[in-house]
């Protein structure tokens, strides 16, 4: 599973920000042709995104994803036919409410891949669930069999509108949806990617919210400001303490197995089966981060 601690939104019509994107330390760049771009600018942004992808492809290790417009708009097909030949790593599909939305995108994408002789299913899909219906259909969407799904994103801002709720700093109004998406994504072995923290200036609030996000199971989040990247990366990365503990767990487990013990303890606590893959996951993530891949 790909590590996506941070997915940084970059407006698709802002070449200056796009040029600097590779050094902003996000694991994924989300080039946006949806909310950040006015209808009159979408065609120009499309071409800019395509040219940008062609110019940076293979030069940087980071993932390059493109947010297209949702399937109810007149823009999404042009987004895909124009940009897919430049082979982004993924298309981010907003306002997905049912599996059919994803199948529509998948079919067009497959057609474009064939026309351009591109390998099939290499471009992944990251749906954003950001309406009440999308949240209720989370598991159905996560279990679509396009072969392209690589994560599920949570979209808090539109969801609040859809719910008729009030957006707060604490975010209790989106708590149910956040948990539901984590559960659906994990059930289908997909990356759950949390919503943005909307206040750029509130670094303290962003860190606290990211810690909560990590606590409930998210492995990364979207961010709207480069200033949030470093902080979020840190929260979603295993700490030195986490790594040390994971190593101890695996050593204790191996030692127990060697001695034929059914159960072992570490620092007075039992080491049981679910702790083993968790420890392995921590070390695997740490290895990917420190191995220069991220």
């Amino acid at each position, binding site marked *: 599973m790909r590590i996506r601690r941070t997915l940084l939104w970059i407006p698709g019509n802002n070449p200056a920000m796009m040029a*600097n994107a590779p*050094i*902003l330390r996000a694991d994924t760049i989300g080039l946006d042709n949806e909310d950040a771009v006015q209808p009159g600018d979408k065609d120009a942004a499309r071409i800019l995104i395509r040219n940008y992808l062609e110019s940076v492809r293979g030069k940087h290790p980071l993932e390059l994803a493109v947010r297209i417009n949702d399937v109810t708009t007149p823009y999404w097909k042009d987004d895909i036919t124009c940009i897919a030949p430049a082979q982004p790593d993924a298309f981010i599909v907003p306002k997905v409410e049912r599996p059919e939305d994803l199948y529509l995108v998948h079919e067009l994408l497959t057609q474009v891949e064939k026309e351009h002789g591109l390998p099939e299913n290499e471009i992944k899909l990251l749906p954003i669930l950001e309406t009440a219906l999308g949240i209720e259909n989370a598991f159905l969407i996560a279990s679509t069999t396009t072969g392209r799904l690589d994560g599920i994103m949570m979209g808090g801002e539109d969801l609040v509108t859809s719910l008729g709720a009030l957006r707060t700093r604490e975010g209790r109004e989106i708590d149910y949806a956040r948990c539901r998406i984590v559960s659906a994504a994990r059930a289908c072995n997909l990356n759950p990617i949390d919503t943005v923290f909307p206040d750029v200036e509130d670094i303290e609030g962003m860190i606290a919210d990211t810690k909560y996000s990590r606590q409930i199971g998210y492995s990364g989040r979207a961010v709207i400001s480069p*200033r949030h*990247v470093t902080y979020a990366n840190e929260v979603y990365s295993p700490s030195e303490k986490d790594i040390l503990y994971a190593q101890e767990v695996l050593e204790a487990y191996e030692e127990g197995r060697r001695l034929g013990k059914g159960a072992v303890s570490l620092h007075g606590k039992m080491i049981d089966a679910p702790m083993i893959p968790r420890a392995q996951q921590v070390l695997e993530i740490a290895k990917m981060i420190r191995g220069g891949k991220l």
Partner: protein
Amino acid sequence: MKETKLCHSIEDAIRACGLRDGMTVDFNHHLRDGDYVIPMVMNAIGKLGIKDIKVFSAGIFNGMMNRGLTDLIHQGVITSTEVTGNSSILGGMISRGELPKVCRFHTHGGRARTIVEEDLHIDVCFVAAPTADCMGNCNGVEGPNAFGSIGYSMSSSRYADKTVVITDNLVPYPLQRTSIDESVVDYVVQVDAIGDPNGIATGIAKPTKDPLALIIAEYASKTIEFSGLLKDGFSYQAGAGGPSIATTRYLSEIMKRKKVHGSFILGGVTGTSVDLLEEGLFDTIMDVQCFDRKAAASLRDDPRHREISDACYAMRGGPNGNRSCAVDSLDVVVLGALEIDLDFNCNLVVNSSGLITGGAGGHTDTAEGSKMSMIVAPLRRTRYPTVVKKCTSITTPGKDVDVLITEYGISVNPKNQELALRLKDAGLKVVSIEELQALAESMTGIPDEVRFGDRLVAEVIGRNGEVIDRVYNILE
């Protein structure tokens, strides 16, 4: 008490000094864009019908130009300037050949040397002083328009034929706290206002939120951390740009973490430097110029914050010069640059469009004097590369520059291999300057070559009075 030195007006003081055509007048620039004194004096000189004046000032800013200096150049009252820095209006006029005589750009230390060794003779020095008494004792830290250190009038007031103190806060004799004393002052003029002290922060960056500047600052602070110089007794100077101020903030965190206690901060002082003093990270600040009101207040109130003269700051020591100066005891200086080239030469004077826009300030002095000089700069500014094959103009020679920090990596001057090894061992992203230049060019393309004419309009002067570079008129 004997008769006072008070004149009724600036015109009276000018007449009393015997100023006439072809002479040189000197000013400090401590109020920067908020300065009223330079325009007031020069307008008065113009009204008296005096022409062909050379303005020898530590700096000339756009605010001063807009208060009359532009017209005085057109009228032939001002025919040349010698400064350590200027902003775009005067720079543009020089570049277009609108001043009839060749202008010169000095370093801060070089300016002091020029005064002390009388390479250039000052006929009248005008001192903008926030507080003074009737005999000319004055300081920069008291009064409604206090700007802090008055360091850039200290040498010139001593060596000029005549010195006039201009103040808006005349206090009873004797002024208790004195930076320039009556022994060098001939006349005193009281005016309504010497300037707006809010203008002293002109061009000084607020704490930056720019993510690229923060990346540069992070690399810069780590470069200092692993340079081998960050230990007890450490001394430090940083400029007033966004990356420099952010570097200072990051450095303070490293000093706290590593429990390093510094000796002195030098400069050009900002409120950020004052924070480090107040946090107990350094023993003292040596201050030739305050860049904001917080620094000015600190100089007034904190005895650990010490005022120094321009000569003490940066005038090179040696058999014919000063005994010593503070920049030569500096461990690390963090500087900016308009351009830096493959030989690490830095350009501070001429922008990539070929227009004069800045000045050396203390750049060349501190780069040469410090143990490690660091240039912090973005790889490109809009569509112009900062890292170039060859600078449009050279201000600080590459031999005095140790390391360049950009958001895309750190490049160490090959003369300093030990530093390169230290930084690589620490896991920092060290790349060659050729790689950075190629990367910059790949992003911006190759800019059109700037076309200059054959008329010499300015000379860039080094610390010792040598001509480092010549600037010709721009063809537009």
